[in-house]
Every structure is written in C-alpha cells, then in structure tokens.
C-alpha cells in the first residue's frame, strides 16, 4: 500500500471511496466544487446585488471573490484526493471568519486529510496559521518577531474573540 506519510505503508487512515479516476472534462457541478459551492457564498446578498461605490469596496469585493474561487477549487481538489467533501463545519468557520473579518488579507489555504481548512498569512519571517475545527473553534499558531527574536505560540480559541485575544494574529491577518 502506498503511503505518503510515515508509518508502515499499511492501510490508509480512513476507508473512503476511491477518488474519481477520470481526468477528462469535468462537469459544471464538479467545477463548482464537490460541496456544491457557488462563488457568491462569501458575499452578502447586498454585495451580490448592488454595485460597489468606491475603490476600497471594489477591492474588497474582488478579494472576497478570489477567496471564494480558491475555496471552490480546493473543494474539487479535496474530492479528487479523498472522494469526500471538505469538512462542512470547518468550511463554515472559515467563511464566517473571512466574512466578519473585513479587511483581512487573502490567506494561503490548504486542507488536511480530515477535511479541516488551514488558512495561513505570511509576512516575511512572521506567520499566522489557523485551523478551523468547526464554525466556532479554531487552532492557531503564530510566529512573530519580539524583542527576544522570532517567538512561536499556539493555542485554541473561539472564532469571535480570537483576534482580540491574540494581537499578533490581528496584525498578521490584516497586514
């Protein structure tokens, strides 16, 4: 048995349906993402239905669309790798975080085998990573410069209070 990870090359972590072996043309539904996501998922109804009035708003809308499109692509990639959808509650947590953290930069986004999303913001040697466990809980890891050099800290937090609890996280996400 092939195994990407360490261990004994034995059975994979979980029995899951085989990934779709067809690599030809995808259906429109597949392109839309295995979870059936649409590119408007991150946008509020007002944002979808109304024209932006300023450059700042336009830039913010464009960024939200880019993040949403990335999530749709990640949905499809995860389905190809594991034959199942991304973890729905982790996905909801990420979308909620991005929607209500207006001004946050677009993060690097990847998925673990569990379907949990990890968003990462990088600024030089400083870095913030957030694993969305569900809609409300998250793990974070921060590497931030201090007077003692690059310091690492990590923990578990509630999505609503996270940015207030961890000031370095706020600085990096909004960099």
């Amino acid at each position, binding site marked *: 048995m092939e195994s990407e990870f360490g261990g004994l090359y034995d059975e994979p972590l979980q029995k899951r349906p085989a990934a779709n072996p067809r690599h030809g043309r995808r259906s429109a539904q597949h392109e839309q993402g295995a979870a059936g996501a649409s590119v408007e998922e991150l946008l509020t109804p007002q944002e979808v239905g109304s024209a932006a009035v300023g450059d700042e708003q336009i830039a913010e809308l464009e960024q939200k669309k880019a993040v949403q499109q990335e999530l749709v692509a990640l949905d499809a990639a995860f389905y190809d790798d594991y034959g199942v959808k991304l973890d729905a509650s982790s996905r909801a947590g990420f979308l909620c975080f991005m929607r209500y953290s207006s001004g946050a930069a677009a993060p690097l986004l990847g998925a673990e085998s*569990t379907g949990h999303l990890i968003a990462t913001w990088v600024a030089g040697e400083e870095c913030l990573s957030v694993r969305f466990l569900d809609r409300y809980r998250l793990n974070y890891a921060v590497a931030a410069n201090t007077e003692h050099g690059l310091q690492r800290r990590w923990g578990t937090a509630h999505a609503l209070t996270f940015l207030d609890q961890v000031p370095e996280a706020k600085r990096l996400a909004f960099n």
Partner: protein
Amino acid sequence: MLPATDHVARSCKNSSLDKRTGRPTPASFEFRLNDGDWHDTYLSVNWLEFLLPQGDFSAKLAQLRAFLLGDHGLPVIKPTVNTAFAVIPVADIHAAQLTEGATTLECRHAPQGDGDPHSGIYPNPGVDQWPANRDAAAHLAIQQLLFQKTCHVERGILAA
C-alpha cells in the same frame, strides 16, 4: 541522522496546496490521527542527496522523480502534475525548537529497500507522548515551522 548540509523533499497532496499560488501550506505537513491514535509516527520525506549528492534542486528533484516513477517495486507515492515537492534543509529541521513541550525534530533515513531515499522527520518526544486529539494546536505549530522552512517548491511532474 541525515547530514546537516543535505535536504529532504516532502510530497504534498493537491488539496494541501494553495490554489492561487500552487504553494504548499501547513496542511502539507500533517501528522494524521486514526480513531484517537496517531497514524503517523513521523512525516515521510525523501533524502535528495542520497540520489544525487551534487547539483541544484531542480536536478536533484529530477533524479527523485525518475526514482519514484521507476520500476523498483518499492512502495512509493507516484508524483503527478497536481502534487508538489517541498524541499526543506535538514539543518533547519534539526535546529527547530518549539519551546513549550520542548519538541525537537530529527531527520533519519528509513529505506524500504536497496537504493531507497525514503526518510522520516521524527518528532522528539514521539507522537506516543502527544495528546491524542485533533485540536492540539502544538501540532499545527510544527506544521507551520516546516512550511516556513521550505526553501524550494516544484510540481510533482513538470508541465511539458
């Protein structure tokens, strides 16, 4: 332990890669859990200089591709156009210090047969001492560190 002057390459799954940039993310360095127990006691990597002691990263990864796609009967993950190799200096892995819990990392050769560059990044203390829950943030810090130490990235199979 692998020499500090050498490098290892991690095969990163498509869904762990950022879709805008194609870059690996901390998700590319996941230690997996299986029903409350750690499935991975170490992270699987390949030792580049074992196959090609001299040359640049592209030449070393070309040699690794040739090995992984070869007909040797060893249990390897075949690279594809959708996967990526993340190259990390061994010295940076050995220098890693995560203060809380004092976890350190060590690269060791773990061949499955003759000529196999397969190696592992082993945490110390080992995963048997790690808390067996999915939300242990310390593991995310290790994944983040390996992500940050990545010095070169290439697709599993280069476009023609």
